[in-house]
Structures are given as structure tokens and as C-alpha cells.
């Protein structure tokens, strides 16, 4: 079949560094779908792309910043959030999107996540949760379910995983949602809403990692998607304490938190800046 150049263009090409494609993600990987959702949300939001930046940490999902045609920053492992905090505070006009993985954001970067949520830094954090460290070959992560096999838990994970939405909620996030990459419309919609929230918003995207996670746990790529279809329950406004990831019992998806409180820079300006300086700013 002959396809002209025009036909072979991807609808998100204007937001992609097409000269960096093909990407590194494996066949069956869910990151690309989560990434597409994120780019679609950015594109459809109508926000000023010139003022929109993507910051990533290290890992498979952390490569997101390398493929998006925006000002994009691929930082150190676990430090995307404090890097993004510096950017946002230095120039509050920027829309700052953090796109990274579960190991990056919640193991090595866990401390930064809770503090950025507490401060309500105006960031949109998209976490692709594939339940393991993909880039290094499939080790256990703080999200790996109990009993699951990885290269560092060869007979099964002895530990319990984080409930990420609960952590985000408890730390002070003003927007919290969870979807799987099978629920792309909902995922895109949530990221879109999150972009417009003034404060710390968090969207978790559950994603298959067939090469590292699936293979060791007798889960073929389509099996994972089938699980995402059959063993998930959409329950908007569910209480975050109900959101443990346990596919045997069923995993709850939805938008759980959508609230308001003054963001980091607003509180700083109000509390710390001299009055006369604020008045001047308003006059200007």
C-alpha cells in the first residue's frame, strides 16, 4: 500500500521531535499511549505552547521529555519535581508538566513529590506506573504489587506497594486521578483538566511493561489490557484509601480529588512580599 507523506503524518507530529523517532519504547509498552494522551491533552487545551515545558526524570517514561517538541528538560533520576519547582517559581508564567515513571517519582524522588504537593506548586505531574523499573531490566519498584516476580524479587515481592493517589491526596494535591492506558479518553480528559488546575495536580496512568514485568509474571501484552478492562472499576470521587492496587480484588479508576487552595507562588507573594511591591506589581 502506498502512503503519501501526508498520510503517514501522525496527528501529534507538530508536538513531536519527529527527527528523534523511532523512540526507545518496546512493542506493547504503554508509555507511548500515556504520552500520546498527554500530548493530545496539551494540544487540545489551547494553552500557550511557547510557555509550556515538559520535565522528566530518568527511566523509560523519563524519555518523554526527549520526544516532545516543547522546551523540554531531561534531568537527574528522581529530581524532575524539584527541577520543575525551580522553573515554575523562577517564571510563574510557564505551564510546567512533569512526565515521568513510578520508580523515578516515588522511590528516589518520593520525598520531592510529597513536598511539592504540600507546597501546592503549580505543576501537572503525570506518572506512568508500569509497576517496575523497565529501563534497567525489570526490578521491583515501590509500586510493584505484593507477590509479583521481578529480577530483584525472583520468588515474589515481599513488600506492599504504594497507593499513589492516597499519597498524593494526603500530601495535599488538589487534583488526583487514575486511569489505565486502555482508558485513553478518560486519561486525556484528566490530564487536560489537570493542566488548568492552579496547584499541584497528579494523574496516574497504569501501563503495561510486557518485556520486563509481563514476561516474568505470565502476562502477555493483551492479557494486561484484558485485566485493565475486566478487573478495573470506574468510581469517580472514591475515597483515596480505597485505591490500593490489587487486581484480584479490582482496581479503582477515576477522578478522586478536584479541589482548590492557593498555590505556592500565590501564598509566597501574599505572605512574603512587601505590600508596596505588590501594589506596584498590580499597577504595572
Amino acid at each position, binding site marked *: 500500500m502506498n502512503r503519501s507523506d501526508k498520510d503517514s503524518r501522525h496527528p501529534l507530529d507538530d508536538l513531536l*521531535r519527529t*527527527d*528523534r523517532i523511532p523512540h526507545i519504547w518496546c512493542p506493547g509498552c504503554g508509555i507511548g499511549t500515556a504520552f500520546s494522551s498527554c500530548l493530545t491533552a496539551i494540544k487540545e487545551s489551547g494553552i500557550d505552547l*511557547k*510557555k509550556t*515545558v515538559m*520535565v522528566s526524570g530518568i527511566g523509560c517514561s523519563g524519555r518523554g*521529555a*526527549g520526544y516532545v*517538541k*516543547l*522546551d*523540554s*528538560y*531531561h*534531568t*537527574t533520576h*528522581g*529530581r524532575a519535581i*524539584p*527541577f*520543575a*519547582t*525551580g*522553573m*515554575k*517559581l*523562577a*517564571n510563574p*508564567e*510557564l505551564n510546567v508538566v512533569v512526565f515521568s515513571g513510578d520508580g523515578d517519582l516515588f522511590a528516589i524522588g518520593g*520525598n*520531592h513529590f510529597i*513536598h511539592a504537593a504540600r507546597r501546592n506548586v503549580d505543576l501537572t505531574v503525570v506518572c506512568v506506573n508500569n509497576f517496575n523499573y523497565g529501563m534497567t531490566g525489570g526490578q521491583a519498584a515501590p509500586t510493584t504489587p505484593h507477590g509479583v516476580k521481578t529480577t530483584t524479587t525472583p520468588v515474589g515481592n515481599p513488600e506492599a506497594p504504594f497507593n499513589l493517589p492516597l499519597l498524593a491526596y494526603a500530601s495535599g494535591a488538589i487534583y488526583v486521578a487514575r486511569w489505565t492506558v486502555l482508558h485513553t479518553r478518560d486519561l486525556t480528559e484528566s490530564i487536560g483538566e489537570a493542566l488548568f488546575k492552579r496547584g499541584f495536580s497528579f494523574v496516574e496512568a497504569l501501563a503495561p511493561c510486557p518485556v520486563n514485568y509481563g514476561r516474568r509474571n505470565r502476562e502477555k501484552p493483551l492479557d494486561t489490557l484484558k485485566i485493565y478492562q475486566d478487573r478495573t472499576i470506574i468510581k469517580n470521587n472514591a475515597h483515596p484509601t480505597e485505591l490500593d492496587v490489587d487486581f484480584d480484588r479490582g482496581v479503582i479508576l477515576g477522578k478522586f480529588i478536584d479541589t482548590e487552595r492557593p498555590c505556592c*507562588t500565590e501564598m*509566597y507573594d501574599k505572605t*512574603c*512580599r*512587601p505590600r508596596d*511591591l505588590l501594589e506596584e506589581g498590580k499597577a504595572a
Partner: protein
Amino acid sequence: MDPAIRTGEYFMTGDVACAEGALAAGCRFFAGYPITPATEIAEHMASRLPEVGGTFIQMEDEIASMAAIIGASCAGAKSMTATSGPGFSLMMENIGLAICTETPCVLVNVQRAGPSTGLPTQGAQGDMMQARWGTHGHYEIIALAPSSPQDIFYQTIVAFNLSEVYRSPVLIMTDEMIGHLSERVIIPPKKQIKTVSRPKAKGRKDRFRPYEPGPKGVAPMAIAGEGYNIHVTGLTHDRRGYPVMTVEAQEEMMSGLTGKIRKNLRDIIRTEAYRLDDAEIVIISYGVSARTSLAAVDEAREQGIKAGLLRLITVWPFPEDQIRELAGKIKCFVTVEINLGQVHLEVERCTGGKVPTFLVGHPGGTIIPPERVIDTLKQIL
């Protein structure tokens, strides 16, 4: 009047003078974490930055502080953090990110005695080699060592200027004694303070290559939000800023990163000579120990010993040529520093065995009294 520059004559500590120097240099973002003996810098920035339209944030740790100042710099702000030994150790990985991504920023290390928690309230100069080689991989770094509150005010401005011109992190390696010492500090009028900013990106936005070197081997820097759609990564990258996992790309990137410093040593390196002209024994020192050495030189001269002092204002890159040249003219070098021989080994390396080198060192916690230097000079003779 510019509220950032408090022109006048003051009695202030080195830590406060450092903060005022940063403000005068145009620093508008500070991220830090409390640590003795550097906390006063953060405290002063916390009260001053909001007055001048800047932002202060106390981060959750030093790792986050370093990451935040790099992010702020990428968003266009001149940024700084300040810490001491344990925090300096935590900042190492992100110092490498700033080097690799060529992001200007200033890091102050008010040194205290280590290793580990060591003597938190007592000074030392034990982190000099960590400044040189602390982050992984091979690199060049700029590190300055001020000797008084007045000097730290000026050197902080120099640090910002060098970081902007060379798009590199610059370290201010001061010590607890200078940080907590109160002395007269004169803050000059604004017009006498020379500040510079990073080379700006120009030209067609779709053709801009973020690591295409300009004059001095330094590429113009595009700031987030200017519309250049740049990619910035700590991976080995080409001139487009794109990751390239090849040996050739590594060679080219490293040649640029090290070359921009190595080829501009004359512009970067600052030293101060004291009674060097006819000196037979040359003391090499920096920071608070340069004050010890200054007193020792005067006392030695009184006693008829032809001593002189070469004070290193820039410790890294090391003034190799100057030391080599001196090595051909003098009888010996004596390095005075509050560690057990770090810069001393550099001096030894540069002399190439031409003249003997001696160390007056101390493991930390106190200044070295001038008498110890005099005793060593007498023993040498």
C-alpha cells in the same frame, strides 16, 4: 535606587556579605536547606529576595535545592544555593547535571570540618578536592576561595559573572571562619558593579542549535518560554541537544565542556601576589588560611626570611602556569591550608620536582596560627 544594591559601609559577616554580593550580581532565586555554618546566607536571602522581586524557597533537602536552582536558571533566573560539607556531598550529582547541560548557577560551600557530620560549627578547608572531582566523570569546574567578608562580597559577583559567561556552575569555597567573621564591608554604588548575563539565543527559532559554540567556545543559551523548543539532557548530547550514545558524541561534547574552561584560563584565574618579587620561599594559600599566611610573611620578613604569598582567589581551574613559572625562580613552596594536603598535592604536581614543597596543614576545627607557618619556614632554612 536599586533595592538590591545596598550601597554603603557596613559591619557584616561573610555569610551576609555573600548574600548581598549575590543580590548585587543579579541573583533572583535561592533554594536551600538549613546547615551550619551556611544557614545565615539562606536566612538573609529569605528576607531580602522578596523585596527585590526574587524568590526564596527552603527545599526538602540539598539534592532538591541544587535541582531547583538549575531549573530556575533554565527558566532565566540567576540562581544560587549555599551549604556546607554534608549538603555539598548531596549536591554532587546535580552539579554534574549543571556542568553537562551548561546551566549557569552558583553554589556556596561554607566549609566545616569533616568527614561526615564532623565539627558542624568549626571551620576547615577539607572539601577542596571534592569541589574539583566530587561529581562523577571527568570535568572542569570553577571554584573561588574568598578571604574576608569584603572579598566574599566581590567574589560572589565574580562567581555569577563567570557562571553566566561560561555557562557553568561556579563554586564559592569559603569556610566557617570567613562565613562567621564580622568585618567592614563596603558595598559600592550600582554603577561600579559590573554584572554580565549569559549569551542570549538569537536567530530563527526552528534552526537554533542549543549547543552550537559561540565566542569563547560557549553556546548562546535559550531560556524556557522563549519559543526555541530546546531539549536539555544530562545524557551525552550533540549540538542540537539530542542524546547521542556514541563514543564520537562523547568526545565532541567533552571537548566542548572542558575546552571552554581550559582555553580561557587567563580570563578565569585570579590570584593575588604579596611580597613575591624577591621571595625565595613562596607560600600558597587561600580562604582564611591566606590571612594566616599574610601575617606569617610579614613576620618572616621581620626576621630576615625572604617569604612571599601567592593567594589563590581561583582555586579551580588551578593556576598551573603561574606555579610552574615560580618553580623555576624560588627555593621552595609552602602550602598553608586547613586539611591534610589537598592543594599542596596540586602544587607538588605543578613543580614537577624542580623545588621542594612543604605543607602546613591541619585536620580542621581551627585556623592555623601564623607561628606554625614561621616554625616551618625556620625548619626549612
